[in-house]
């Protein structure tokens, strides 16, 4: 019998019933009395000065109630306090097509939409920058005046151990370039916010956000309203994946429009706007040099990345560091150098997408390890097992490793897929590939520096035995509400379905930093456990007195507190609560969690990478390649993931499968790409998400290393499992057709190019990927010429030559 009554059981999520009956209230489902509908006017130019905005015609349009522009909210804002370079709506300048410029509130959405076309914006075009190479070179064009060198946003250099010595002692050195294409989250729910400002001068904002607390801070700054007068309520997010973890223009615009009109204002983005809001996966160019001994032991790694950040900072400083920070936590690396550069370009800002900044380097590194294994004649699975970073160790870049289940993940995969026997043996067109990975269970540091808890929780037990858990977490579909209820229920000896959860409300719940960096289970889980254990000790004291049984012999489970030696000696949970309240007063307890000190180094840049516990995972992909059409079919992805302990195995498996699905989409097709600054695929017709018929068979294997610091041993499960899927598929494609795909996505066109079947030349290639910083196809000025050509084309169409018609 399990030592737990809740943990480890496949119980339905506590919020399932609302989802399954249509009762869940997402932000766009809110309709308030006297509510107005807002729409945002978005920039049509990739890089331009705003000479003038004339809203007079729009303001006079019947049904329009209020209009705001950037000048109304000029304060700089952004998620990272050290790099705030955005405004709620564009001020003086626009930096990407789709940047919000003005907001209109009207009696209905149609009217607001109509009014947008009546706003006149006079733009003075500036040279746009679209590629990493141009951004590094063009000193004459500054997307942000603050950039010291050309259009560099951030440049970082870190070095650990004896790099030169490491390379000198290597028997074999690989030097490979990779490119990871950008892509976006595409949650099915578009962003939506409803603001309501009342006669009491208080603002309430219901919004689909992953970070209600950080948004709260930014609202104060931008609106000039004290935080004590603002209440942010994170509505259930209809998917987020990192795409709702920045403060967004529509949230501020809805708030200010409501303050101006004293009426509720709702702004819901349409699908095209979601592609402009973006904050998705950075396109990253990478160069990885790795030295190894004959047996494969790594002697040194020099990793370099160039990130195309788009027009604004977002989480970019963290993303940049993350590309280099976590390569060291999986395999022993005695010497390591990391150089990272993130540049500005005139495209929607990139930010954190599931796996934040670690997905791209993990792809490159695991593909390179596959090449090394091949060079040295090693089995790729056995090889990885031999070079594992040990548990309870420190990496060369001073990261503390605790529980470490990557070896168990690899063993589980070998048992499930017989990778080692099948690799290289499946025949042309069929392949099997492997990769490993790791991720953080929450960032070790908050986004703004402070000594306060990362997560707080409050629990109240009422006289009827009702339990309410309050915590600032945002439910984004990852199951955080259910996690809170489960941890509290386990500690108190009740069931999750008995628990009322109040989450994501800055007025009712203690601060949790947000649903990002896979931090919620570990940090909010520990906070709620802390609070629950305090209440449990009050209940146990009361029960002990009543039953005449020592407290250390008591167990709480299934609504009873009982003597473990004599389970018939018990008191019900409700009776214990009444006794405890009689004795101690109202039963409320607060708990909190802050990561321990000393989990990372103290050098500049050491703030990104440390976490209280790393999750580990590995994936095996099985593929078929049609040699005539270039079609890549992924037949199956098997992922083994060390989540510490599965608090709810059904939900953990769901995270693993969902991650595999999302990684599959990224490598097979998804790309956020542009032509002359215009998004090429800003709809779900063009930006194809895998359907049920596309998606491979997915198998999830849960590995439990039971982390000593995690709540009941748990670590993260929401992001890490995405990472290994992408390189596993690339490595499987190599096994199938002998072509290295050192860039994503792997499209049929690229496969045909590699097979020499795309053009008449018929020259097969052994590798598709970059050889340096330059664009693989064509020159960097191509985009500009295309933009000019398409602009001229449009102008010609608009003004037919004299004499025609």
């Amino acid at each position: 019998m399990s030592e737990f009554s809740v943990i480890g059981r496949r119980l339905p999520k506590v919020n399932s019933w609302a989802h399954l009956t249509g009762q869940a209230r997402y932000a766009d489902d809110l309709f308030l009395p006297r509510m107005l509908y807002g729409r945002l006017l978005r920039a049509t130019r990739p890089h331009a000065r705003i000479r003038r905005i004339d809203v007079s015609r729009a303001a006079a349009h019947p049904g329009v109630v209020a209009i705001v522009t950037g000048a109304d909210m000029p304060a700089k804002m952004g998620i990272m306090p050290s790099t705030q370079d955005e405004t709620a709506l564009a001020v003086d300048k626009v930096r990407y097509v789709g940047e919000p410029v003005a907001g209109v509130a009207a009696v209905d959405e149609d009217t607001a939409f109509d009014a947008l076309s009546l706003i006149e914006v006079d733009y003075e075009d500036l040279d746009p920058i679209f590629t990493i190479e141009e951004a590094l070179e063009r000193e004459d064009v500054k997307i942000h005046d603050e950039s010291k060198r050309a259009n560099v946003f951030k440049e970082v250099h870190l070095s650990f151990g004896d790099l030169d010595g490491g390379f000198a002692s290597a028997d074999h050195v690989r030097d490979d370039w990779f490119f990871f294409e950008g892509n976006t989250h595409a949650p099915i729910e578009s962003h939506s916010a409803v603001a309501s400002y009342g006669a009491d001068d208080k603002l309430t904002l219901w919004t689909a956000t992953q970070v209600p607390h950080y948004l709260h801070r930014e609202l104060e700054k931008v609106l000039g309203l004290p935080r004590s007068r603002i209440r942010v309520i994170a509505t259930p997010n209809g998917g987020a994946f990192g795409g709702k973890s920045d403060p967004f223009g529509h949230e501020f615009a809805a708030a200010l429009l409501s303050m101006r009109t004293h009426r509720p204002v709702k702004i819901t983005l349409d699908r095209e706007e979601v592609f402009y809001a973006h904050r998705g996966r950075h396109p990253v160019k990478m160069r990885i040099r790795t030295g190894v001994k004959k047996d494969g032991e790594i002697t040194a790694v020099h990793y370099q990345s160039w990130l195309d950040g788009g027009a604004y900072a977002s989480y970019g400083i963290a993303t940049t560091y993350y590309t280099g920070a976590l390569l060291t936590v999986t395999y022993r690396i005695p010497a390591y150098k990391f150089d990272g550069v993130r540049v500005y370009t005139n495209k929607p800002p990139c930010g954190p997408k599931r796996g934040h900044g670690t997905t791209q380097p993990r792809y490159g590194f695991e593909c390179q390890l596959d090449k090394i294994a091949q060079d040295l004649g090693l089995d790729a699975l056995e090889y990885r097992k031999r070079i594992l970073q040990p548990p309870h160790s420190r990496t060369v870049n001073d990261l503390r490793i605790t529980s470490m289940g990557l070896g168990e993940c690899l063993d589980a995969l070998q048992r499930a897929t017989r990778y080692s026997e099948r690799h290289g043996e499946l025949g042309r067109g069929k392949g099997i590939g492997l990769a490993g990975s790791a991720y953080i269970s929450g960032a070790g540091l908050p986004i703004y520096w402070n000594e306060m808890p990362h997560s707080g929780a409050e629990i109240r037990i009422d006289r009827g035995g009702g339990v309410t858990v309050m915590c600032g977490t945002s439910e984004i579909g990852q199951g955080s509400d259910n996690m809170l209820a489960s941890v509290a229920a386990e500690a108190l000896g009740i069931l999750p379905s008995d628990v009322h959860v109040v989450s994501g409300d800055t007025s009712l719940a203690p601060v949790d930093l947000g649903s990002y960096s896979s931090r919620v289970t570990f940090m909010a889980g520990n906070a709620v456990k802390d609070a629950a254990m305090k209440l449990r000790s009050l209940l146990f004291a009361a029960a002990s007195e009543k039953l005449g049984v020592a407290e250390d012999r008591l167990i709480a489970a299934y609504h009873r507190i009982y003597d473990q030696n004599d389970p018939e000696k018990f008191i019900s949970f409700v009776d214990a609560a009444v006794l405890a309240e009689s004795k101690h007063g109202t039963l409320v307890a607060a708990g909190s969690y802050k990561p321990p000190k000393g989990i990372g180094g103290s050098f500049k840049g050491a703030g990104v990478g440390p976490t209280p516990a790393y999750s580990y995972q590995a994936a095996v992909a099985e593929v078929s390649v049609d040699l005539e059409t270039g079609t890549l079919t992924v037949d199956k992805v098997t992922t083994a993931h060390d989540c510490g302990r599965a608090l709810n195995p059904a939900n953990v498996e769901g995270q693993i499968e969902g991650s595999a699905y999302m990684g599959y989409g990224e490598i097979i097709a998804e790309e956020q790409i542009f032509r002359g600054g215009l998004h090429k695929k800003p709809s779900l017709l063009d930006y194809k998400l895998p359907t049920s018929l596309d998606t491979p068979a997915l198998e999830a294997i849960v590995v439990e290393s039971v982390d000593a610091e995690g709540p009941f041993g748990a670590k993260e499960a929401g992001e890490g499992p995405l990472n290994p899927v992408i390189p596993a598929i690339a490595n499987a494609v190599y096994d199938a057709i002998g072509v290295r795909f050192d860039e994503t996505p792997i499209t049929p066109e690229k496969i045909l190019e590699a097979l020499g079947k795309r053009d008449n030349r018929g020259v097969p290639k052994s590798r598709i990927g970059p050889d340096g910083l330059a664009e693989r196809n064509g020159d960097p000025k191509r985009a500009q010429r295309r933009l000019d050509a398409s602009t001229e084309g449009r102008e010609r169409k608009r003004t037919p030559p004299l004499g025609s018609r």
Partner: protein
Amino acid sequence: MTSTKELLTLHVNGEALTVAAEPHHTLLEVLREELGLTGTKHGCELGECGACTVLVDGAPVLSCLTLPVLMGDAEVTTVEGLGSGERLHPLQTAFAEEGAAQCGYCTPGMLMAAKALLDGTPRPTREQIATAISGNLCRCTGYTAIYEAIEKAALRT
């Protein structure tokens, strides 16, 4: 901004409901905004994501591409009509048990597509399920738990 609303009668979840609605508004908009049935979701405006799926005379239909003024007496079923409280549909129970709803946003449309499948094919194969829900995008689950839930519900109906 001149209102051009017209009266129209819709048959939704077994009730005849008369509402005033803009004739160019879609069934999705009328359900959500005029009838307060917000269980049906908006996702892409293009009929690509399936979040707005409802049943019209038992067949799955994209409500974002359907004009109610053209629907006549057709019977519309939304997630609110699928079951609630004491009378949950086996699909709803199975979705909860299998963790087939993560964020829950595609779920109402997914449930309606699954109901149409089971109504016509009580014991579907995995391939038939995959085909039946191929017009409903789910960004969270990878579909595996959804297949398992539909299979489980099929055994209980």
